[in-house]
């Protein structure tokens, strides 16, 4: 499923409106996963298994977060799943959202969209996206169990009879481009235009089942040709002028400036395709999660923060490719989009995690006590190091002094800051200014492979508070808290 839907369904997204939302850290739309329960098991699904109703947000919790989104400026709520139409409370939620004066958009595979439910959706002015990945039954079977393949077609019939599409309630067909349906996309697009339906074609984001099935891979050059062909037809035949850019056909995805996804268990992520957890609405308010998020801060300013070839592209002012694709393929949500055809000859310039910390931190041998940056997330990172006899703080018995753990934690947060700012000029210099609550739970020997996890828990002014854990083979060796100073413009003190 995709979340870049609001603009496709009529939410007016003027540049100045988005700029205002970005500056104020507000929302224009929000997506919410009603539940992970779903009727089919699609080979192309990018979702995860349901965690069970007892872990998912209650009806009241969902309503509360919708009210929070409204208070933050959201004008429309997009309901995702799983499959939302199999949820018992779907119409209660839709009607609640409408009572708040908000627009509703919903993605469905057509389940339970019988004549009466189609009518009720239309009466509530729900903007719908019906998932249909191709005309041909074969591709529909990739999408779903064979007996469910007819759901979309039956639903489409019922929706049309109910009044869709209309000026009050739009109907889009949501399609993910893969190599099995590529040959149909031009025809599909024209058929949708001729039917008055909104085409919502997107490049397949590489996550979930798709990579394992390898059914989604499409060579960038062919995608470029497809986008260009559809753009030409849309201009010549339908009078719609737009410039091709990934990942959406006919639309620009700049959603991270004004939207977010609240998952079924309350986890907040930038969107469906970018699975970095920013926080959970059961622990913090949505406002606080969005205000504190460094990931969102970077994404809102992607034209300045994006790395590699995308930063030099002449479309950089209004395109940042697919951040989810970049993250899932490189581990870096700010990496250039490797699937963009414009980057096809510059893939070697796109840094992929894990990466050596050399160049990310100012420390050099022998005082560089970490080797590799493994991953980055929301104010968090993991690094690793193989302890050698040449390292300082190693005694004659090959034991590493406990104080080294503090330094490893400090250098890990520095590596995270260095990676985040890579390519953006001179790295900021930070200093370790305090440590507390250090607990040593085991010895470290030469030869041990350690993994260090760090998380920025708080900040005040130029001081950041970082929690760190050092592990060996999953066993905690040390944990503690440090304080790091950097000047106000830098990252390490910004939690």
């Amino acid at each position, binding site marked *: 499923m995709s979340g870049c839907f609001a603009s496709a369904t009529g939410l007016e997204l003027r540049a100045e409106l988005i700029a205002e939302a970005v500056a104020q850290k507000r929302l224009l739309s929000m997506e919410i996963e009603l539940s992970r329960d779903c009727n089919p098991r699609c080979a192309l699904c990018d979702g995860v298994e349901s965690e069970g109703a007892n872990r998912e947000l209650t009806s009241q919790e969902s309503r509360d977060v919708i009210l929070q989104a409204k*208070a933050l400026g959201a004008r429309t709520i997009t309901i995702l799943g799983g499959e939302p139409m199999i949820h018992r409370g779907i119409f209660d939620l839709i009607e609640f959202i409408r009572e708040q004066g908000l627009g509703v958009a919903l993605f469905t595979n057509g389940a339970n969209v019988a004549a009466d439910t189609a009518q009720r959706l239309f009466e509530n002015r729900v903007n719908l996206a019906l998932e249909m990945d191709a005309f041909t039954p074969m591709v529909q079977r990739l999408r779903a169990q064979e007996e469910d393949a007819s759901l979309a077609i039956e639903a489409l019939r019922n929706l049309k009879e109910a009044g869709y599409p209309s000026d009050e309630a739009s109907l889009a067909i949501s399609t993910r481009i893969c190599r099995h349906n590529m040959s149909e996309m031009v025809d599909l697009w024209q058929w949708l235009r001729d039917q008055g339906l909104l085409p919502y074609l997107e490049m397949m984001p590489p996550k979930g089942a798709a990579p394992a099935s390898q059914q989604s891979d499409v060579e960038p050059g062919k995608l470029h040709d497809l986008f260009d062909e559809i753009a030409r037809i849309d201009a010549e035949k339908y009078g719609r002028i737009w410039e091709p850019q990934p990942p959406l056909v006919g639309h620009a995805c700049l959603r991270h400036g004004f939207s977010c996804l609240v998952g079924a268990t309350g986890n907040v992520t930038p969107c469906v395709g970018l699975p970095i957890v920013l926080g959970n609405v059961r622990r913090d308010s949505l406002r606080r999660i969005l205000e504190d998020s460094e990931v969102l801060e970077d994404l809102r300013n992607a034209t300045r923060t994006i790395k590699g070839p995308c930063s030099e592209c002449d479309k950089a002012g209004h395109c940042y490719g697919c951040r989810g694709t970049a993250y899932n393929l490189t581990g870096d949500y700010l990496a250039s989009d490797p699937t963009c055809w414009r980057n096809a000859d510059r893939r070697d310039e796109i840094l992929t995690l894990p990466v050596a910390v050399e160049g990310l931190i100012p420390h050099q041998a022998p005082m560089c006590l970490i080797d590799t940056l493994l991953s980055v997330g929301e104010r968090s990172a993991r690094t690793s190091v193989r302890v050698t006899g040449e390292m300082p703080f190693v005694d004659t018995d090959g034991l590493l002094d406990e104080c080294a753990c503090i330094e490893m934690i400090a250098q890990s947060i520095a590596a995270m800051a260095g990676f985040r700012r890579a390519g953006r000029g001179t790295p900021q210099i930070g200093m370790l200014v305090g440590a507390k609550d250090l607990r040593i739970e085991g010895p470290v020997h030469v030869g041990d492979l350690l993994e260090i996890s760090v998380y920025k*828990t708080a*900040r*005040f*002014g130029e001081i950041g*508070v970082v929690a760190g854990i050092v592990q060996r083979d999953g066993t905690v060796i040390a944990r503690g808290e440090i*304080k790091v100073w950097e000047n106000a413009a830098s990252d390490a003190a910004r939690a």
Partner: protein
Amino acid sequence: MTEQQVIQWTNEVFEQAFEIERSMLTADAHIFEDLGLDSLDIVDLVVALQDRFGIRIREDERIRTVETLGDLYAYIVMVGQEAALGGEG
């Protein structure tokens, strides 16, 4: 939240986070000179107060004008009232 509750909770933060005896926690006690906190301790104090009261302090420049414990009580009362009016601290 009453002023008395603010005083009680604030004092508890100083007792628990900095192991300062309750007898020293008077309204005219200077946070730096009398209670012995330094600039790094202030970070922990802000974090502890945010967690205890559920308010946001760190980006509020007014916190920097606080010098005594009494100033701090008054500040938290004010922020709490603003949060109640605005929906969130």
